């Protein structure tokens, strides 16, 4: 049931990518989509009353959550950071050349 929250978050990000005209808002939308998918992966690996997947003295190993989605999501977060940094750099260069973030006013980019 809680998975639907992830899809709602994903829809919010997709909405902002499709409808907003400001480049910075589009980048924020891409980040929201990214984190919605990360949250979904973490929720897939969760189990009720689970604890963190770190072995400690006196703790039963059957109760830990699945470590594999967490490892995958750690990779995904770093890739998302790299993509966001690159997108922001491109947006800064576009602003230097055209003086605006509005994608409607950047006429040379229209196909």
């Amino acid at each position: 049931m809680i998975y639907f929250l992830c899809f709602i978050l994903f829809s919010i990000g997709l909405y902002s990518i499709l409808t907003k005209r400001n480049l910075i808002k589009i980048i924020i939308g891409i980040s929201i989509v990214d984190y919605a998918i990360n949250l979904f992966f973490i929720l897939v690996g969760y189990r009720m009353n689970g604890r963190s997947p770190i072995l400690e003295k006196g703790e039963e190993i059957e109760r830990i959550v699945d470590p594999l989605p967490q490892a995958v999501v750690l990779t995904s977060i770093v890739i998302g950071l790299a993509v966001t940094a690159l997108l922001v750099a491109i947006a800064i260069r576009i602003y230097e050349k055209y003086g605006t973030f509005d994608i409607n006013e950047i006429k040379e980019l229209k196909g």
Partner: protein
Amino acid sequence: MKKFWAIITVLLILFFLGSGLIPDLKIYKQNNLSQKTGKVYLNRTVNDDSPFKEIDKKLYGEANDVENNAANSVTSVIVDYRALDTLGEVTVLFLAITGVIALLGKSKKNNRILFEKPNYILNASSKILLPLIVLFGFYIFIHGHITPGGGFQGGTIVAASVLMMYFAQNNYKLKNNRMKVLESFSGLSFLIFGLLGIFIMGDFLQNFLELGIMGKLFSGGLIPIIYILVGLKVSAELSNVVYEFMGEE
């Protein structure tokens, strides 16, 4: 000459990727891959009275025969089972940072972002906080195999200290050439440890050091070394990103 080195590099990568297809290669006979993953990993336990005791028992603080002896399972997955994937991840981060530097580095209009003149308390306390934050970041990635955290998290904390200095002081300047040297050194060392794994144990990035006792700082063999290198590389790269975004004098 450049083409020659490019061809050599591509052939080496093809060899590493394709050598798994040759079953008679001598180096692969030393490992029983079916024992390496799966049941052995999932059923390991830390208590005496566990139902899985007969299958695979590893006691916290005593065991020293685990094939990767990190208490943090996520670190085991990232740096041991999927270490090649982590190498690719670091490469992706490096490529993105190269793109940022190429896009922003040569722009003439890239003036330094200046803030309102910081007051004395902010100016003095940021200098005191800087070594503490850097120390905390180093703690996070040195202890990545026994506590929550790891190379990427610790590297981000170190880069956040650089960002704090840029926010707090208008005349602060990062020595980014040293950061580039640190980044190249740690990335190269990662590859060298991976190649040493081939020559000593017969598999790329395989553990060849003493595994130690689970839960201690010096345990897990190659895992803490690789995570320290990843942490240094990530901190240098993200500091460079902060340097590029904040602009030059």
